[in-house]
């Protein structure tokens, strides 16, 4: 058992999967070039030395291009782990993902599988509006894609390994402030959680959430960075006598609805925290599920804490204002009592 950052845990997962199955390979921009960072956030750092450039495949800056290569390779029987430097660039490969990868197994009557893994860093980190978005909700809206959001090192490794072994296209969203990237890729203001990660092979099942903190008075659902914002808020709230239960769904599609519903049935209150823009966001979907299926257990309105409906600002001070803070979570919770 080692204490690892999320970047290290992901790297370990990739290494183990590549060792286990020679069909597994990585593809992306600057993931293995000599002197590079090992993709933007050091996840694949050193893997090209270990597996060679044929399995750590650097591509030109053409997201649509390498997405097509990866999807085609998956359809042909390989198990690619593609890396998009910034999640924002997923839009460049949208047709490949939404119209081809997601629908292929349905359109082929189950004969053509697309065992693709697409890793995408998200989150506002003082890089401006085009390198800051949290795009998870877009992909939860496309049937045929699985969407994972690991927030700990243990889950990062276990979920990535499950994703590699899954026959469906899986998007893994990783938050830039949670990687624990080191050296010149150290992120300012990063949380960089370090956690125990077993050395042996293990999987985290896709579709199972976890309760990060038990509480009786309010359910706070977060994902990625906002799980930590929620936990921070819960500590403060506990001092004021409000016991918050913090839920990390870990996977958005499929979603562990039961976990959320059971928690809300216990607490009677729900606050959803995410870094995405408010309108049409994932928080609204969770609110709708609870309103439909646990309405009579609600003791207060459902609250969403999210980024406003604007692009992420470039100025760091403005960005702090933009991203949901623990204080905003606390205020939202208190408004329910």
């Amino acid at each position: 058992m080692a204490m690892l950052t999320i970047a290290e845990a992901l790297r370990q997962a990739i290494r183990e999967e590549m060792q286990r199955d020679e069909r597994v390979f990585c593809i992306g921009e600057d993931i293995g070039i000599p002197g590079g960072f090992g993709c933007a956030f050091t996840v694949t750092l050193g893997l090209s030395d270990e597996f060679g450039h044929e399995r750590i495949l650097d591509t030109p800056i053409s997201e649509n291009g390498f997405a097509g290569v990866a999807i085609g390779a998956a359809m042909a029987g390989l198990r690619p782990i593609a890396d998009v430097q910034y999640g924002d660039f997923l839009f460049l490969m949208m047709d490949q993902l939404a119209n081809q990868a997601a629908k292929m197994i349905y359109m082929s009557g189950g004969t053509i599988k697309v065992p693709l893994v697409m890793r995408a860093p998200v989150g506002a980190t003082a890089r401006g509006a085009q390198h800051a978005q949290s795009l998870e909700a877009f992909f939860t809206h496309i049937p045929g894609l699985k969407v994972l959001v690991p927030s700990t090192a243990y889950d990062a490794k276990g979920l990535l390994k499950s994703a590699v072994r899954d026959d469906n296209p899986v998007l893994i969203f990783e938050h830039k402030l949670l990687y624990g990237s080191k050296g010149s890729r150290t992120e300012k203001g990063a949380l960089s959680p370090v956690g125990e990660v077993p050395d042996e092979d293990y999987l985290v099942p896709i579709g199972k959430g976890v309760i990060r903190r038990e509480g009786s008075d309010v359910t706070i659902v977060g994902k990625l960075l906002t799980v930590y914002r929620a936990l921070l808020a819960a500590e403060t709230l506990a001092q004021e006598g409000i016991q918050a239960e913090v839920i990390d769904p870990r996977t958005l599609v499929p979603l562990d609805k039961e976990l959320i519903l059971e928690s809300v049935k216990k607490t009677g209150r729900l606050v959803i925290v995410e870094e995405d823009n408010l309108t049409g966001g994932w928080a609204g979907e969770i609110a709708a599920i609870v309103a439909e299926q646990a309405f009579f257990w609600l003791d207060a309105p459902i609250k969403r804490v999210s980024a406003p409906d604007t692009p992420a600002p470039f100025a760091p001070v403005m960005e702090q204002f933009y991203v949901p803070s623990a204080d905003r979570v606390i205020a939202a919770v208190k408004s329910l009592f």
Partner: protein
Amino acid sequence: MAIEVLAPPLGQTTDRVILANWYKQEGDIVNEGEPLFAVETDKATLDVEAHASGILRGVKAKIGDEVKVLSVIAMIAAPDEELALPGTITSPEATRAVPISSQDAQVAVSQKQDRIFISPRARRLAEENKISLDEIHATGPEGAIIERDIRLYMERPVKPPISPVARRMAEEAGMDWRHLTGSGPRGRVMSKDISAVGITSAEKTARLSAAPPEGEPVEIIPVSGVRGLISDRMSLSHSQTAPVTLTTEVDATALVELRGELANDGIESTYNDLLLCILARALREHPRLNASLDGDNIKLWRDVHIAIAVDTDRGLLAPVIRNVEHKGLEQISLETKSLIDRARQGKCTPEELRGGTFTVTNLGMFGIDAFTPLIQLPECAILGVGRIKTQPVMLDNAVVGRQMVWLSLTFDHRLVDGGPAARFLQRVAQLIERPHLLIT
């Protein structure tokens, strides 16, 4: 801003009044000072003046309704004023919260009153436990009732607080007081709550009474309103006092003659008037009978205020002649006549019907000789006077016809013992037999 029209507090024991009449209807123009409505208590009908000018709006009580004193029964509004909710009455808080200039605020207030805001969770809990939402105090977000409000209500002490005296009374009466809402602070059950419930509760009556006769009654008179109040009061007297009645036959010949002499001198008086003079004198001399019970104290009074029981169409009334001890016969006659007349017409003011220290009741006109009157709480005693009739009496070894009268004095043995009461009655008898002693 609309002015609230309140049911007036009348009498010291009355907490309900009957709305006897509206002199104005909904929408009428009302001028300050003109009679607006009439209320009736067990003792009197009283006109109530408008204390503001405007339009009568939101009339809540109908003629004949029993209303709680100080409750809002209507509003007097400015001609163009929109009541927050026409036809119903806003709470004082709500009324204050409505800025007349702000349409939005008015809408918000009326919405609040239209419906109860409650979380789905709280509603579910309330329904499961069959709890009425009217009694729930909302503390949740946006003023809604939430789960904790229901839980708090469910966990409220089942037993209300109760005073030691009330507890003892309840235990002695074998009464279950836990469901009562007391009239004391924070719903504390007081002794009067126990006696009120203990006596008037239909449940108890049913429990204690034999089965009623079968068949259709000729008439059903509800024991409510004036009848209900008399019923309560009499039950209270009968259950709470320790009444003892002393009777004595008195030779009233001299009093009859005195009355004739006075009439010859142009001073018309009734036996009641003469009796009041006598009682005033005797009560000054025997203050233990001119007393009332106030909590744990017996209060002896210097002033003699005598209530006279009057049989009226509306029931028993007892207007009070004040400071009888300071008044001459002529003034007593005048006041008594006026009071009795007004009592019969239902026009006595509440002030005229309260504050007695002693009561006299005369059934002589019905041919009654002796009886056992009921004490009017909180007084100590009541004197019943029978008819004056000529009886054969042994006097100086001869049987002669004398004008005889029976006196029946009921006193509360809690306040005074038999000896002092008998001595008082003896003194009254002496003054009747020898009325010239009044001038000594």
